[in-house]
């Protein structure tokens, strides 16, 4: 049994496998299937200051080896989180990370301050890459100045580990990663979903109520992997990789490309036990390759 633990800033993850925001609720929803304490962390559903109803149904379209979603950050707001969810999860032995969303910089800051009060939330993931909301979201994540501005403002009020979640819908993701690093981000996670679209040819209408939505799943894995590799070479802070991970081998590819940890999203819909299977698979791999510590694996891709 190799040592699977990994650190982001000072925060220890018992293993490098986290669940991705928006794909495991607040953790409780998958507790029937997995023992949450066996996970490195749980990144919870995107949270906003106020209750949001999200977008209208239909919000989902199946695509070749993937899916589009247009949930639009449906959530009951931070007060509800603090009152009704936090008490249930705070004693579970894993890292519960809040995925922080806002339409304005002020909202990001205010929400972060609220989360900062919660002892058992050891880190936040700043989502500047949601493609499914009209205001904020991805708009912040597709240019360096706006990404820097949000991170700077949030960093000023938050001293625990700050993970910034990047959008893949950009020409140069390494540049954005460097920009948020320069403003004090402790880690970057990538990728969020790709902006995509589905059309029902017979009815001649868009499938999603919002016309476009976010593409996730194995379809995007080759692009996500390339982005993680580029970003890992561009920044010094740890990178959390995701996008289409469906098994331990996929996760290991991200780690070889430079990710210090991975998140599993859409794969959970197909098999909610996947995250623990990936933990086991990484452990097997390390054993098979005679590595004692997970850290040896990070970025160990052999080029040339």
């Amino acid at each position: 049994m190799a040592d699977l633990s990994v650190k982001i800033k000072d925060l220890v993850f018992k293993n490098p496998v986290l669940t991705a925001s928006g794909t495991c609720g607040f953790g409780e929803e998958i507790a029937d299937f997995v023992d949450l304490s066996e996970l490195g962390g749980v990144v919870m559903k995107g949270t906003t200051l106020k209750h949001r109803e999200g977008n209208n149904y239909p919000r989902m379209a199946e695509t070749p080896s993937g899916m589009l979603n247009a949930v639009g950050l449906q959530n009951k707001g931070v007060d509800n989180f603090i009152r009704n969810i936090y008490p249930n999860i705070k004693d579970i032995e894993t890292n519960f990370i809040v995925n922080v969303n806002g339409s304005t910089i002020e909202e990001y800051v205010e929400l972060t301050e609220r989360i900062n009060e919660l002892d058992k939330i050891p880190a936040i993931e700043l989502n500047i890459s949601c493609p499914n909301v009209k205001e904020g979201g991805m708009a912040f994540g597709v240019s360096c100045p706006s990404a820097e501005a949000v991170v700077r403002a949030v960093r000023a009020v938050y001293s625990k580990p700050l993970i910034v979640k990047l959008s893949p819908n950009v020409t140069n993701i390494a540049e954005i990663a460097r920009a948020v690093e320069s403003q004090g981000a402790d880690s970057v996670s990538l990728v969020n979903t790709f902006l995509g679209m589905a059309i029902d040819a017979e009815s001649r209408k868009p499938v999603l109520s919002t016309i476009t939505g976010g593409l996730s799943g194995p379809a995007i894995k080759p692009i996500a992997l390339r982005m993680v590799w580029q970003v890992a070479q561009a920044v010094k802070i740890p990178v959390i990789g995701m996008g289409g991970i469906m098994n331990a081998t996929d996760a290991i590819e991200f780690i070889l490309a430079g990710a210090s940890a991975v998140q599993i999203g859409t794969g959970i819909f197909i098999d909610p036990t996947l995250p623990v299977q990936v933990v086991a698979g990484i452990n097997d791999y390390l054993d098979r390759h005679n590595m004692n510590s997970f850290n040896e694996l990070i970025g160990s891709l052999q080029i040339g």
Partner: protein
Amino acid sequence: MKKTVQELVLIENTQLNHDNFRLVLQAGSELPEIFPGQFVNVEIKKATEIFLRRPFSVLDVDYQNRTFSLLVKILGRGSRVLTTYQPGDKISVIYPLGKGFSQPETTDKVLLIGGGSGVAPMLFLSKVCGLNPENVHILLGARSIADHVDVSAYQHNGKFYFTTEDGSLGEKGFVTNHSMYKSELSTFNKIYTCGPDAMMKAIAKDAAKAGVFCEVSLENMMACGFGVCLCCVEKTTSGHKCVCTDGPVFNIKELTWQI
């Protein structure tokens, strides 16, 4: 009623009519309790183009043999391939999912209306609702006699009525045109229905007008089936609710249907 992901064994695949099949799945260990209206989410590995699981209502349960059955209607690619599975094949299933129909009072007179693939939960409900069969009326609609499935195994659970659009079985027309439906609607304590949206909306409208308790089982598109993706939502009087966990069964009073 813990949800699990399990590899079940297909032990029977019977073609019931041109596009309906009954699949019987067996678990390796004791089955959890499963209620009418609940569903399972099935992985269809043999289909090249299918990524997500496909949800199907439970048609029947046999706890002793650790089996339950599904009624699968061929609709698109996934359901087509699923009906080609052979006994002995293993199928990964997440179950039991969703909340079923509410239990009727022992003295209730109930009307179960099924259309299309919505027949499955109605037949299951007729079997386990625990009512005197005299008080259970089951109305099934289809396009033509060829689209109806044989329900003789359920015949003692209640009184059956049929409609077909071409008149080839039972009365001609939609379920809402049936003479029993039209004359007796307000005499029922509870109406349960599952089927095409248009059918359920017409029934909901009539039930609301007649002031009869009415539950509908929705078939919104699902990605996960267990409440994490928030893709299957239905607008309700208290905001968006997940069909896969808050439903698939809803009282029509909760819904915001324009009826």
